[in-house]
């Protein structure tokens, strides 16, 4: 792991300050990245990681401070200039044209002289991709590539532009465990050859296995740096969240009760050509159990959630709740039967941004005596909202604050609390802690476990495998709209789950989309 540690200084940031109205996103940040170093940039959402990357990549200009590039002062006015200097970046959301081929996409970022000779470029792409173990066919259309392959296109693009600093923003969040391993091999090889890598992440174990150094940000400042392989994940987490926040919940396992929800051969055909159809999904869910569904985004998770919430109607028999076919019922009818849903999008689906928390309580809790003869009982609405805020520690200026004014974590606590306080029999939660600060995530996990202990059946859809293994009794994976078998979390290996996430779970059929 000491490879490249003695390299020359590639990038040095001194006292970088970037201020936005009402928020000092970067408050005097120092950072040094050596040649051949894999350097982790850690921090919670809102700690200032994205802003710092944008400063380096020339998307925004710092208000104060200076940058040194290979020892010389660096001023980057635009991403194009950054690329010309050898700084490449792979965003979380890729910037690829789906209707163009791999080579065409890469040609777009090159000077005309290099882009013109397509045959030579294709040759170049093959060479680079093979050399670093990222197999790519330059003639394939991006629309036919898997998410992992698209990421390779982005990385190869940076390499062809001869980047000597590669910035990767949460690169593993879209990958299966196997793809993550392959990516890390590539990154290690790049580092050995002298390329510096700035690796933005909040997954501590990954950082510990991959990175030589780590800089941790908290509230716009550097809260510490360390050699990740030499300290524990808990120590790093402490640097990220500060001293007074609980870092994780201890989850006790319990024996589940009777079957509450039965999904039998649930199929649904998407009308959207880019959508995912559900294909013969089978699932049993018991009272007092949390079942997890893993999977790379876009493999039918949202469709499954909608089929359960009633936003998508399916056959009556497909979904059975306590002996009653609910597949054809509307969301409010299902809610009356004790179904509670926490959708992935907090603002714009789980809550209306421009409305107050009290009004947002009415969105799903109108059946809790908040409406009488068609008229809203505002005193009760406020009481209900107030109870949610109190019970679940939602930080806000009372029940009349706008939903949009809350931080992601606090709004999520409010939404989960709103559903939990209605004592649901079934709770389906999608990515409940995505983009949520560690403290809120712990509170959300506790709320889920409490609901489970109260006898509710919980279906947890998440991309965060740590979360799934921590909370769930049983885990399976969705791939291409098909659900893998379920296995007890204690017996399921991460390798096995990774294969399921890649669609490799039915030997009778060809694997759907091997990575």
């Amino acid at each position, binding site marked *: 792991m000491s490879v490249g540690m003695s390299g020359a200084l590639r990038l040095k940031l001194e006292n970088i300050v970037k201020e936005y109205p009402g928020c000092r996103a970067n408050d005097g940040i120092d950072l040094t990245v050596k040649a051949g170093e894999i350097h982790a940039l850690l921090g919670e959402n809102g700690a200032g990681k994205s802003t710092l990357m944008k400063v380096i990549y020339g998307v925004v200009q710092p208000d104060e401070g200076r940058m040194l590039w290979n020892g010389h002062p660096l001023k980057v006015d635009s991403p194009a200039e950054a690329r010309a200097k050898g700084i490449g970046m792979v965003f979380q959301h890729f910037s690829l*044209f789906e209707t163009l081929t791999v080579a065409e996409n890469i040609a777009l970022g090159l000077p005309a002289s290099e882009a013109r000779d397509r045959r030579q470029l294709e040759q170049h792409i093959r060479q680079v991709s093979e050399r670093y173990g990222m197999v790519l066919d330059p003639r394939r259309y991006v629309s036919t590539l898997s*998410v992992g392959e698209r990421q390779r296109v982005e990385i190869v693009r940076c390499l062809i532009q001869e980047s000597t600093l590669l910035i990767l923003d949460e690169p593993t969040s879209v990958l299966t465990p196997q793809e993550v391993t392959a990516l890390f091999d590539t990154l290690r090889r790049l580092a050995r050859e002298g390329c510096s890598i700035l690796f933005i992440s909040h997954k501590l174990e990954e950082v510990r296995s991959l990175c030589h150094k780590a800089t941790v940000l908290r509230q716009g400042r550097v809260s510490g740096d360390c050699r990740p392989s030499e300290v524990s994940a808990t120590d790093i987490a402490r640097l990220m969240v500060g001293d007074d926040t609980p870092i994780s919940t201890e989850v006790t396992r319990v024996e589940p009760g009777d079957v509450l929800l039965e999904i039998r051969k649930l199929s649904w055909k998407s009308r959207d050509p880019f959508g995912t159809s559900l294909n013969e999904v089978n699932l049993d869910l018991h009272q007092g159990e949390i079942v997890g569904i893993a999977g790379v985004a876009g493999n039918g998770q949202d469709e499954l959630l909608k089929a359960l919430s009633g936003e998508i109607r399916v056959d009556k028999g497909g979904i059975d709740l306590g002996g009653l076919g609910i597949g054809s019922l509307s969301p409010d009818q299902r809610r009356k039967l004790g179904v509670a849903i926490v959708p992935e999008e907090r603002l714009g689906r789980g809550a209306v941004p*421009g409305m107050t928390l009290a009004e947002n309580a009415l969105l799903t809790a109108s059946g809790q005596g908040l409406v009488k003869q068609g008229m809203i009982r505002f005193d009760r609405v406020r009481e209900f909202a107030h109870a949610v805020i109190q019970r679940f520690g939602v930080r806000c200026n009372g029940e009349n604050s706008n939903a949009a004014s809350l931080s992601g974590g606090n709004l999520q606590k409010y939404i989960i609390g709103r559903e939990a306080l209605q004592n649901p029999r079934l709770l389906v939660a999608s990515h409940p802690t995505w983009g949520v600060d560690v403290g809120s995530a712990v509170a959300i996990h506790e709320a889920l476990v409490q609901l489970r202990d109260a006898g509710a059946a919980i279906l947890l859809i998440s991309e965060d495998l740590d979360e799934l293994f921590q909370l769930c009794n049983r885990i399976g994976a969705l791939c291409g709209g098909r659900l893998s078998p379920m296995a007890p979390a204690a017996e399921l290996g991460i390798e096995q789950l990774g294969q399921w996430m890649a669609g490799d779970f039915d030997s009778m059929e060809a694997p759907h989309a091997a990575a």
Partner: protein
Amino acid sequence: MLLLERRPVDSSLMRWASPVLALVLTVLTGFVLFLAMGKDPVEGLRFFFITPISDLIGLAELGLKMAPLLLCAAGLTVCYRAKLWNIGAEGHFLMGAVGASAVAVQLVDMTGFWVLPVVLLAGILSGALWAAIAAGLKTHLHCNEILTTIMLNYIALNLLLYAVHGPLKDPYGFGFPQSVMFADSALLPELIPGTRLHLGLAFGLLAAVAVWVMFARSFIGFQLKVVGQDHRAAAFAGFGARRLAWFAFLVGGATAGLAGASEVTGPIGQLVPQVSPGYGYTAIIVVFLGRMHALGIIAASALLALTFIGGEMLQIAMNMPKAVTGLFQGLLLFYLLTCDAFIHYRIRLRRPARQFTPRAATTATQEA
């Protein structure tokens, strides 16, 4: 370089100042226009805005014009709060007038307190039925309601012309395209004796109050607001968008239909081709000027009613064309929409932007 940039928070001051600012700009532009036409602008503005309402008769006339505007605007508010852009109040209004008249001409010999309610009900149902066509096209065939309602307005106008030239034409009317005069039992009672002001204004005020209660207190009002602000949240909550669209269209049709019925059973007393000077269209301006709020709509309907009688006054007193009413209404809506931009945006002075914008590098997206 001037830059229009989004405000971090919408300006609540601008929200209410915008209509006032729009009115001031409209008056200023009117001033310039009068000058350009060689008329005395002070005189012109006085005839337009002040003379018409300087006595009781004038105020009663104002109320008379407010009635249909208020009724139409109340119904449109229900639609617009749910972001259903129903432009069809004019058509609903005309069909309401035709439907009410069709019943009223059957009942010319009838006396009794039931005649008027039956006639009004016919108007309400006709308006609602007309709106139901647009609602069905919207919810079942996904037709854009702006286009369908505008087209249905023209169809309604031609149905009105057909009615007064054909089935509803007064056989002893010397060939004029109009119906017989309705029986007294089918006419709305006067509100102020000696003026033409009739019960229609009370209907309008009631409708405005009802809309206020609906959106301030009722659950269906809340559901309509959610559908309008965030249709994904509405789908998630299970507020049926179709059901609510039907509700909004039917309410919009019913109120505009009542406005049409009140017009033929009120000041006119028969069906004539020119039953509406464009009340249904003007009501759209009323809704936006009044900020979709009951009190605002009442004030805005008074102002827009004034443009009708002010326009007539200018024709008489200063020999100006009739188009002056439409001109002032158009100016008002134009300035209002312009000023409304400053609720969400503000102007800032800035250096010219860089040639290469970072966004351009990340335009392409992918479905993850």
